């Protein structure tokens, strides 16, 4: 596995997009871009699955299995038998 971060769970259904461009405003890694009035997924490999785009997409055009990319939180959750992985207590 040369790069664990190239693949992720981000999916964009362009047919559902209404062009509100909220995804371009909330994404901290410029995964989406707007050109000629249409939104496109230009850097999917940069997605960190924070879920901001999905939550702010009013038409459900974006889906992502969002969560915290933190090994500590994941291992603590696994040890404690928790389903949800979050930072801190």
């Amino acid at each position, binding site marked *: *596995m040369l790069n664990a971060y190239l693949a992720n769970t981000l999916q964009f259904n362009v047919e559902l997009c209404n062009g509100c461009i909220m995804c371009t405003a909330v994404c901290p890694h410029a995964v989406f871009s707007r050109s000629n009035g249409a939104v496109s997924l230009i850097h999917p490999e940069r997605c960190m699955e924070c879920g901001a785009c999905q939550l702010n997409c009013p038409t459900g055009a974006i889906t992502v299995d969002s969560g915290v990319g933190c*090994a500590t939180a994941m291992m603590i959750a696994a040890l404690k038998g928790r389903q949800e992985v979050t930072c801190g207590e």
Partner: protein
Amino acid sequence: MQNVVCQSDDHMISEVSSRITLADRWDHLQARLGIRRNRHRVEPGLYTLGKPSSESPVFASANYTLSFDALRSALAGVDCYILVLDTKGINVWCAAGKGTFGTDELVQRIEGTGLAEIVNHRKVIVPQLGAPGIAAHEVKQRSGFRVEYGPVRARDLPAYLETGKADNEMRRVTFHLADRLVLVPVEIVHMLLPMLVIAGVFYLVGGWLGALGTAVAIMAGVVLFPILLPWLPTANFSTKGFILGGLVAVPFILARLINAPDMETWQRTVWGLTHLLLIPSMTAFLTLNFTGSTSFTSRSGVRREIFTYFPAMAWMFGGGLVLSITMTILGLFGI
């Protein structure tokens, strides 16, 4: 820092200045060192900065002093309102990930402070990194207030307010050397006690070199790694950690191989092997755990890293520990 004043009939509004005092800086230093970790809080509610009118902008923030202070100091000279959400003393981005900086809390805080009676407009400027917890369209539907996402960094707010928009640079999160260095003190503080305990164990089963090797492995993970992150080869945090750990293990391996004339060759080799197994595994474990401090690792990627590399870390550490114990016992019997 703040004075409480009663402005409307039912709602308390506090005044705050944009000035960062010595007491604030002391609080920031403690926060950066992880001291009194859950007590760097601001009272949630509505604050005035300067002399805002009913047309003045409203900014949302977390009730974590570093977040709140970054916002109010960046807004020096701006008459505005700051709506502080109850994020349990957690910063905006982490709280958004947990959902405490979230739609429900924002809507309830808007209603609870009577914001609609205080301002004539219906817009709240929310930090962009709060977006993983806020559904803007839902806030609009439930409260009547439109969420406008401001820039990632509070320091870009003056430019954002001037132009009315955040440019591409303002929308990108960074992880430059300064961003990484600021994480080092708290990592050291958190690792100090575990490091002393583990180093103590390896002193008993490996002498001073064992203890020192442990300290160096851990410091490589918490100090060197954040500094060297972009320059270490490979993309995965674990492999970067194995490489860094391997490099810092070299002096210890050489010391075992060269600096023990009273030992047999096989004994020196095995002691050298313990460092080759222990130091990279400890460093790699810490670098894997640094994923949570970064601004770009995805959950699915981290999961892949854990499943791929954690077993190797555990086997290497276990093997190094067993070898150290075995060699120490053999040494006690004069072998």
